[in-house]
């Protein structure tokens, strides 16, 4: 679950219990607000109401309206204000209600937050963590389902983090808030309440039945840039993150494939060592993401694996992704890179 270097010494004794991802995120925010009076949390509906997904529930009551508040519906303003607050010395954690709504704030992220440190030679920094629910599978249609991570991984100066479990969500969010660089923290909303496996016709098991929902109480951090080996195996390496970890895991389990599944956790900076070691061991690589295919983060992963592991590869690298269309409402499951699409790619790799 957690390596020694990630955990404070006392963590082994820290009591833990199973909570869902929203509770884990709420706990991370609570802990950081408690520890650092410069942490402020704001966004549309995050104050009194506690967020449309409840991630900030109770925080305004506990820390006051000065530190937890609603904002106008203006993502440019939310992120622009966060940049200014960061320049002042605060550590803002703005929420963008859905990743699909982040685009009005893009200039403030791409041209400002990402470049403050560089352009001012370190005089000004943007220690901001932008939290945003992303991904589909909730019948959100084209405007509540997108996975725009590749837009951000393409930008020099931004870190992009995507957790896949309550345990990781808490530790990664704490690390993101403490980080002195701007972090895009995408939360796979489909797995807020349980590890959705892509079998949409079967009931989703709640996090309470999953060991990755075992979350220590109190403070701990998971360093950015370190992947997690979800499952060790020999047959192939699966590179994924967020919801797709659980889908890939279920497919491999169902098919009885001895795959090595790597949860990237952080896309930038990427844990290339773990990826390289695994692909060199297995000789096969499957990349899975929910985002559209063309220029998706899978393209970058594929290029890196090819550059570094070419002579160890026994089969062409496989990419399983969403289709290059907007996210459709009624045909959501035809779009979603579910067990059938992943299964086909797994079969091709096994036959190769």
């Amino acid at each position, binding site marked *: 679950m957690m390596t020694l270097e990630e955990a404070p010494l006392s963590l082994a004794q820290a009591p833990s219990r199973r909570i869902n991802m929203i509770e884990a995120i709420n706990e991370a925010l609570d802990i950081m607000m408690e520890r650092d009076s410069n942490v*402020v949390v704001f966004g549309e509906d995050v104050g009194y109401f506690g967020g449309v997904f409840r991630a900030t529930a109770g925080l305004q009551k506990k820390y006051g309206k*000065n*530190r937890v508040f609603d*904002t*106008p519906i*203006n993502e*440019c*303003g939310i*992120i*622009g*204000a*966060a*940049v*200014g*607050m960061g*320049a*002042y*010395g*605060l550590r*803002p954690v703005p929420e963008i209600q859905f990743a699909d709504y982040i685009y*009005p704030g893009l*200039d*403030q992220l791409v*041209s*400002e937050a990402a470049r*403050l*440190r*560089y*352009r*001012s*030679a*370190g*005089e*000004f*920094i943007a220690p901001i963590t932008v939290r945003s629910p992303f991904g589909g599978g909730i019948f959100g249609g084209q405007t509540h389902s997108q996975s725009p991570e590749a837009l951000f991984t393409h930008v*020099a*100066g931004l*870190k992009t983090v995507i957790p896949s479990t309550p345990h990781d969500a808490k530790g990664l969010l704490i690390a993101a808030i403490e*980080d*002195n*660089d701007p972090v895009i923290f995408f939360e796979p909303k489909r797995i807020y309440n349980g590890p959705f496996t892509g079998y949409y016709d079967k009931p989703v098991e709640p996090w309470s039945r999953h060991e990755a929902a075992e979350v220590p109480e109190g403070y701990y951090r998971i360093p950015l*840039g370190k992947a997690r080996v979800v499952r060790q195996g020999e047959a192939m390496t699966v590179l994924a993150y967020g919801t797709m970890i659980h889908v890939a895991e279920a497919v491999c389990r169902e098919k009885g494939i001895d795959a090595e599944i790597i949860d990237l956790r952080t896309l*930038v*900076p*990427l844990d*290339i060592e773990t990826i390289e070691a695994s692909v060199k061991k297995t000789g096969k690589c499957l990349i899975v993401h929910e985002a559209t295919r063309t220029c998706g983060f899978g393209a970058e992963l594929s290029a890196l694996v090819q550059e570094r592991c070419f002579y160890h590869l026994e089969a062409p690298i496989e990419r399983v992704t969403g289709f290059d269309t907007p996210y459709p409402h009624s045909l959501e499951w035809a779009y979603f890179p579910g067990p059938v699409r992943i299964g086909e790619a797994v079969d091709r790799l096994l036959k190769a």
Partner: protein
Amino acid sequence: MAKGPASAGTAGGNLPPLSLHVPEPPFRPGDPVDYSFLQIPAAGAFARPDEGCATEETHPLCHGLIRVLDEDHRAVGAWDPKLDAETMRRMLRVMALTRAFDDRMYRGQRQGKTSFYMKCTGEEATSVASAFAMDNEDMVFPSYRQQGILIARGYPIVEMINQIYSNRADKLKGRQLPIMYSSREHNFFTISGNLATQYPQAAGWAMASAIKGDTRIASTWIGEGSSAEGDAHAAFTFATVFNAPVVFNVVNNQWAISSFSGFAGGERSTFAARAIGYGIAGLRVDGNDALAVYAAARWAANRARAGKGPTLIEHFTYRAEGHSTSDDPSAYRSAHEQKEWPLGDPIMRLKQHLIALGEWSEDQHAVMDLELAEQVKAATKDAEKNGVLGHGLHHPFHTMFEDVFEDLPWHLQEQAEQAIRERRIKWPTWKEYE
């Protein structure tokens, strides 16, 4: 057929055809210039509401023009800040230094010492007098033509030149386009080339100051052209919602490169009047009148500091030179505009005021101008010892990869090694100097 739009004769066929209005400036190259259509109220014409007044009381000022210096060089009316002569002489000196600096840097660019420069000629009062009205601890989020603020705050001009030359002493490590200064020590935020982004940032900084129970306020600048950006709307909205202690300056210098103010809405209303819709205080000020600018900035700063919220100040002025060294204004506007500009020149007006008071003379002014030219010349020589753009004396090569992140990740480490390798392939004996 084909005599009208495709829809003619169908729905609404009896209605007159719609037409698109594309704004056109009053004067183009070669045109004689007559500014008599501009409404220029007399100096002293407007009352000065209390700094803590209801925002509505400022709204007449959004369509007026606060002016202090009259035609006889006297300071008149309720907005006269009644500055002592010594303060006014210092203000005059900083404005004159800013102009001397601009002239020298412009020549430097033409001599190939750097790639780019932007003068603020004619607009010196908008930044210098504002800087005098603020505390040096107040945070400034500037646009690209506020060098006067940095000079007013005592930033060494040799450091400005190092930045303009992108040389090895450039505090920004040669990364930024010339004039995109940054100085945390002088509470001067790093200038962006993306217009208006600093506006919501200033609102955010001011919110942070309020969150922390601080006493410092923020002040920010855009041009009338970039007031059209969505960032301005975001900033006004956040500032009014959270009653942020921030002063919004719109420097209306009539021209955004080749687009006159009509392309930002200037034909329909004033820029100060935007304050009305947001429920914030608004002032429109003669931007070439240093005393009026000082008075307006002071009013807004006091109001913000008293917890009464944001103010929008439109500085009505004229961009006397090109947008930048890359621009040729004779291609799109009449060369007569500048000399016909009814509000004169800010340095000359303050100078004449001091002379009228018996506190200054033509001789003293001439001596000062010589001193300032020498001061800039000496700083230029000092900066040139650190190199000029494109002559090798830049920051060490590896600095290109620093400060993208706090720590250097593996992919940038690899790319840094590649950059050094390329260097060695091209110049086998190349060594990084320290």
